[in-house]
C-alpha cells in the first residue's frame, strides 16, 4: 500500500484502488480525481485540458466506465476501481485500442488521445458492445480534438469494431 500525505483544509483519508493497487491518501475529498492522479500519484497520462468537463483529455475508467476525472471529486470514487492509461498492459481491451491507435498513427500532438482511448476501452468493454453511432455520439458529447485527428479516430473505431465482430463470430 502506498501512503502519501498533504496538509490542507478538509483533509480526510481516502481509500482508492488505482490501477489495481490500493492507495490511502490524505486529501480533501473535494479534490478532483485528476489532481490526485497527476499530482499525488504521479500518473501524468491523464491530461489536464479544460478542467471543466468539456474536452475529455482527462478521461479515466471508474469501475470500467469512462469518467472525466477533472470534475470528479475524489470522495466519489473511494472503494471503486480507477483505471488510467498507465495500466494499459493489464487491460486487454485498452491495450488493443492503443495498438490500433499506434498502428493507424491516430494522433498528432496526442494530447487528446489518451482520454479518447480510455473512453473507447470503456465502451468496448461493455456488453453488449455499443454500435458505431453510439460511440460517435459519446465522443461528440465528451471529447474534443483540435489537431483534427477525428478521421483517424473514426477509422480506429471501425477497426476495433470489426476485430470484435471477428472475435465473437
Amino acid at each position, binding site marked *: 500500500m502506498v501512503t502519501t500525505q*498533504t*496538509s*490542507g*483544509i478538509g483533509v480526510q483519508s481516502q481509500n482508492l484502488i488505482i490501477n489495481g493497487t490500493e492507495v490511502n491518501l490524505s486529501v*480533501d475529498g473535494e*479534490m478532483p480525481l485528476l*489532481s490526485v492522479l*497527476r*499530482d499525488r500519484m*504521479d*500518473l*501524468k*497520462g491523464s*491530461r*489536464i*485540458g*479544460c*478542467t*471543466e468537463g*468539456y*474536452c475529455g*483529455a482527462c478521461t479515466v475508467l471508474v469501475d470500467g466506465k469512462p469518467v472525466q476525472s477533472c470534475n470528479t471529486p475524489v470522495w466519489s470514487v473511494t472503494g471503486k476501481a480507477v483505471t488510467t*492509461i*498507465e495500466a*494499459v498492459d493489464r487491460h486487454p481491451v485498452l491495450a488493443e485500442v*492503443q495498438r490500433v*491507435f*499506434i498502428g493507424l*498513427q491516430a*494522433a*498528432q*500532438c*496526442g*494530447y*487528446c*488521445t*489518451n482520454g479518447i*482511448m480510455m473512453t473507447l476501452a470503456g465502451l468496448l468493454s461493455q456488453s453488449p458492445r455499443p454500435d458505431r453511432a453510439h460511440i*460517435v*455520439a459519446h*465522443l*461528440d458529447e465528451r*471529447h*474534443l*480534438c*483540435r*489537431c*483534427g*485527428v*477525428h*478521421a*483517424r*479516430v*473514426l477509422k480506429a473505431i471501425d477497426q476495433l469494431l470489426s476485430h470484435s465482430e471477428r472475435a465473437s463470430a
Partner: protein
Amino acid sequence: MSGCPANLKANPLLSRWFRLDQQPVVGVRSGKVELGQGVSTALAMIAATELGLDIDQIDILPADTAHGPDEGYTAGSFSVEHGGAAIRWAAAQVRELAAQAAATVLGARADQLVVEAGQFRRPGHNEGVTYWHLHDRINLDVSALDLAAPVLHGGTIDNAQMQRPDLIGKLSGAGFIQDMTWPDLLHGRVLRPDHPQDRLMTCDEASARALPGVVAVVRDGHFAGVVAHSDEVALAAIALLRRSAQWERGAALPVDDGLNGWMDHATPVSTCFLDEAQPEKDCPIQHAARYSRPFIAHASIGPACAVAYWHDGQLQVWSHSQGIYPLRRQLARTFGLEAEHVNVTHAHGAGCYGHNGADDVVLDAALLARSVKAPVMCLWTRADELSWSPFGAAMRMELSAGLDANGQILVWNHAVWSPTHLARPGFGDGVNLLAAGDLAKPHARPPLADAPRPQGGGDRNAVPLYDVGARKITHHLLPQGPLRSSALRALGAHANVFAIESFMDELAGLAGRDPLEFRMAHLSEPRGRAVIEAVAKAADWTVNAPGGEGHGRGLGFARYKNLGAYCAVVAEVEVAETVRLVKVTAAVDAGEVIHRDGLLNQIEGGIIQAASWTLKEAAGWTQDGFKTRSWADYPILNFSEIPAINIVLVAPEGAASLGGGECAAGPVAAAIGNAVAHALGVRVRDMPLTPERITQAIHA
C-alpha cells in the same frame, strides 16, 4: 560554400547538430521543434538516411538555446524544407568525417567503406566500427563551411510503415511539458482580466498570502500571480485575488456585429503593392463582392504551460514555444540580462498551430519564479487560453474584376483589411510578451507591422495564381483590433483564398462556364494545373453538374504563399439548415515526400481544422469583455461532423520538399463556400457559414 543550406551556414558548428557519445544512438539536435506535427520524425528520417543509421538509432534531443542550432521559428511550413536541408547536409558531412576515422581504424580507404546500421565496414567483412566507437576520433567542433560539400545520399528511408517514435510514450503516460516534475517544483498561476481593456489596480494580497500552502504573491505593476506548493492552492489563491480585484478599463470596445463592422472606424496603413496598367479593352462583364472572416481562437486542447527556474542570476526555462531563440532574447531584454544568462529548453506541448500563449506563459512563470528559490510551473486556465492567447486575425476582402465578352478576365482588384497576423515575440523593436506591458516598468510593444512579403501576413495569398490581366492588390494593415491577433495556421491565406476562389466561381457563373474549366482557362502554372486535374479525377468532377436541391460540390485551389505546396480541394456538401460536409477530396503537391504518413496526417488535420473554422468558429466580445471563456462558448467540429477524406499526393520527379501542414486551409474554406453556393443557388460570403447565415442567404 555554395549549396550549403542557409540554416547550417548560420549555425556551422557540426557539434551544434550532432552528438556521437550516446552509444548506441546518435543524438540529433534541430532548431525546428516538435509541435505535435511530427516534424521530429521527418528530421530523424533524413538524418538516419544520410548517416546510414536505422531510425531507432537516432535520438532527437530537445532543442535548447545553450546547445542547439538557432533556426528561428518553427513556422510557415518551412521545417522540412529549411531545417531538413540543413540536417541532411550536416549529417552527410558527419558521415564523411566518420568514414575517414573508420578508414584509419580499419586500415582501408574511406571510399571503400560501407555504412549500415551505424557501422562502417569493408565490403565482405563482418567486423566494423560504429559512430559511437569512433566518437573520440571525430572532432565535430568544426565548421561545416570549412569542409568540402558532401555527397548527399538524398531521399529517405523506406517509410511506408514508419511510425512516430514520440507517440508511443505520450500514448502510454507522461510526455508533455505539463507532466514535468521535480521534488521541489512549485506551482504558479496568474490573474488575468475578463476584458481585453482591463488592467489590475488593486487586490487583497494579504488574504491570498495567508492561505496555507501559498509561498508567494507576486505583484509588479498591473501583473499579479501566486506561487504555491500545489496547483489547487494556487488556484484558490487566485480566486481570492479575483474576488477582491479592482480593474481599470481602458477604451470601450466597438460593437461586435459579427461582420467586422469595427473595421469601418479603424485607420489602416495601406500599401498597394501590385498595380498593373489597366487594359484599353472594354470589360462588358463586371463584378464585385466582399467577403469576411472573424477572429479565430487558437484553442489549443492543452493549457499554455512553462517552467522557470532562477539560479545564480541565470534564468532557465522550459517552454513549448515555436521560437526558443527569439524567446530567449525577449526574456533577456525584459529582465535586463545578457542572452547568455537565459537558457530556453524546448518541451513538447499540446498541438500548436501558430503563435499561441506558449511564450507569454514563460514570462509569467519567470516573474513568479523570481520570488522563490525553486522551479515554478505556471499553467494558464481554459478561460485564459481561449481569451488571452493571440487570435487569428479578422479579415475583410473586397474583390472586383472585369471580363471580356468571352469570359476572359482582364482586370482584377483585391483589397484586404486586417490587423496584424504577426505579433510574435522577437519581431520588431520592443517586447511582445503579454505581461511585459503590465509591469511597473513596462516594456513597449513593437510598432505595428505584419509578416513581410513575399510570404505576407494579411496579404498572404492575396495575389491570385491565375492569369487575370491587370492586377491591383492592396493591403490595408489595421491597428490592433478589439482582440489581440497574431499568427494562426496559414495566416491570411485562409480568407484570401476563400475570397479569390469564391470570386472565381462567381465569375465562372457570370461567364456561363464550369468552375473547373474556367480556372484551367486562366491558369498556365503547370504544377497548379496538375493538382487541379488530379483532384478533378479523384473526385469524379463532372463538368456543369447541376446543383441546387441542397446538394452541391465546390472547388478550391491555391499554392500556399504562392511559393509553397500546391493544393486543390473538392468538397461535397448537403445543406438543409446546417451544412453537412460529406466528402473532401484533396490533391497536394508538396514536392519530395520525406514521411508520407506524417504528411497525410498533417493534411488531414489541416482539412478538418479549416472546415471547423469555416463552418463554426468565431471569437467575439461584448461590452463585458471576451465572449469565449470556455469550450461551451467556442464550438469546434466534432466527430459526427467529419467528412470522408481522400488525399492524393502528386509531385514532379526531383521537386524539393515543401511543408504540407498549412496548404489546405484556404482551398478547403473555398471549396466548402463554393459547394454551399452550388447546393443553394445563393452564396454566403461571410465566415463562418452558420445555420443563421444560411437561412439569411436563402431568404434574402
